[in-house]
Structure formats: C-alpha cells, structure tokens
C-alpha cells in the first residue's frame, strides 16, 4: 500500500512542477519525476508478497513464489523511453537558450499558456 501512495505522490509532485514551474529545466525534471513515479507504481503492481526475483538462478525456485515479471519488462522499456524523451527535451532547451538567452518560460513568447 505504501508503494502506491508513494508513487502517486511522486507523480503529483512531478506534475506540479510541470504545471507551475517557470524554468524549462525544472519542467523536464518534473517530467522525469512523473516517469519515476509510474515506474514505481508498475513494479509495485507486480510485487508478490515474500516473492523472489523472477530468475531461475538456482534449482528449487518455485514459479508461484516469484514476482510478476511483466511489469518489470515494461518498466525496462519505459525507462529507456524516458531517457530518450529527456534527451530530446534537453537538446531543445539548449536550442531555445541559444536563441533567447533565458530559461524562463514567460519570456519565451510561444510557450506561455
């Protein structure tokens, strides 16, 4: 239960940063926090009480006593996608800074909302 609460809190904190913060890099930080929250949520969904990691590394491990591997596989993919989006976002920020010499969203005409 605590995992669910933590992950939702993380998502909300990240979203708050995206919605309220004026600094471009802060907004991207917010996005990555949201991503982290969802990853935690997914892993928590797959957790099995007293389960073991889904690797048959030694004999005698029971499949029924293992945590669900699917969310883990999804999170692996999602982490890489998050990195890709962050990289593109940051490169855009470098471009924007080059043009505007500021990271403040209010001083960049089109980004006001």
């Amino acid at each position, binding site marked *: *239960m605590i995992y669910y609460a933590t992950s939702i809190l993380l998502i909300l904190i990240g979203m708050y940063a995206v*919605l309220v913060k004026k600094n471009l890099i802060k907004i991207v930080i917010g996005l990555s926090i949201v991503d982290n929250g969802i990853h935690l949520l997914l892993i928590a969904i797959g957790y099995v009480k007293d389960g073991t990691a889904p*690797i*048959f590394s030694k004999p005698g491990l029971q499949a029924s006593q293992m945590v669900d591997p699917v969310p883990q596989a999804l999170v692996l993919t999602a982490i890489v996608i998050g990195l890709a989006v962050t990289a593109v976002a940051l490169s855009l920020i470098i471009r924007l800074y080059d043009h505007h010499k500021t990271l403040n969203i209010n001083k960049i005409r089109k980004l006001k909302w």
Partner: protein
Amino acid sequence: MRKVIAILLLFIIGYYSLDVLLKIPFGESAGGVGKHYLESTIKETGAVNSVTAIVVSYRGFDTLGEVTVLFLAATGLGAILYDKKAKKRALQNASVIVKTSSKIIYPLIALLGAYVFVHGHLTPGGGFQGGAIIATGVLLMFISYRSFETNHKALSIIESLAGMTFVTIGFAGLIYGTSFLQNILPFGIPGELFSAGIIPLIYIAVGFKVGAELTALLDNLLKTIK
C-alpha cells in the same frame, strides 16, 4: 492563481487514482500472462532470467521499438543540435591522477558492460544496461582527456550494423521459422552461456547499439554551441 488551479487539479487526480489503486490487491501472486511466462520461460525460451525472456523473446517487438526510440533520440538530438562547424568540447583537462586512473578504469568499465550484456539471459542486466555502462565509461574518458575523440564514422557504422542485425534476426525468424523474431536457434542447456537461442545474439546487438548511440548522444551534447 495558477498554483491554486494546479493543486486543485492534482488533488482530484490524486484522489481518483488512489481510489482506483486501492481496489487492486497488493502482493498477490502473479496471474494472467505473468503466471504463464513464469511457468514456461525455460521451456519456451531457454532463458533462466524470465524478465530477459519477456523483454527479448515474448515481447521482443517492444525491444525493437525501444532500440528505435533510442536511435531516434540520438538522431533527433543530432538534427536539433546540428552545426556546420564542428565544435570542441569545452571541458578542462583533468589532473594526472584522474587521467591515469581513468585510463585504467575505462577498459574495465567497458569489459563490465560487455559482461552485463552477454550474460543478460542468465543474470540481471542485458543490452540496455550494458550499453549504458559502456557509455558511462566513454564519458569518463571525455571528462579526463580534452583530446579524447570517438571515431564518429565507426560509431555510426556500429549503430547501423547493430540495428540492421536486429531486424535481420527478426526476418530470419520469418524465413526459417513461422514468425518475425522467432527463436529459431536451439535453446541449449538453460543456465549456460551459450543457451537461449537468439536471446544473447539480440542482446549483444542491442548492447553494441545502445553503447554506440549513447556515446554519440553524449558527444553531440558536449560539443554543441558555446
């Protein structure tokens, strides 16, 4: 004003998502597809690590997409930060101690990365993790040596070839088996290095590709403007 609206909105989202999540039982044993994967990983894929089996075999198509996403990020970053005049990195030369130690550590990091992606089907880790580790090693060299240059041509060739290898393995499955990305090689004995059919092959390709991509990405970021 904006803050108030944002907080209100977030409160609503938070309330409803908690409400929905509390209905999900926590910690119960895996059901549905997860259960099936756990029970038949070894039989159907020959891999010991069922996360790897899912990532590379059951949901191998996602991984192809994932590789594409990284490739896309490297390409997009290159396009966005493109500059006719190649710039030098603006980092200072590090001290002798850092230089010497990074020279020693760098091959070890690369080796660790390679180990991680070769053993993806046996231990935690795999192509993405291994590739990321290798890229961090190269970054260490970037930081310590001002003049350390990666061979761009070689990097982009590795990137391309590794990507094409992945797709080709996929088509081989279609040609020699029945479906795209099908595991057509023998599984061998589960738990050994040479087992699990195409899984290690794919992870090696992914490892090379991710390593090259992330290196190119870092190099691009470090070199542009200012």
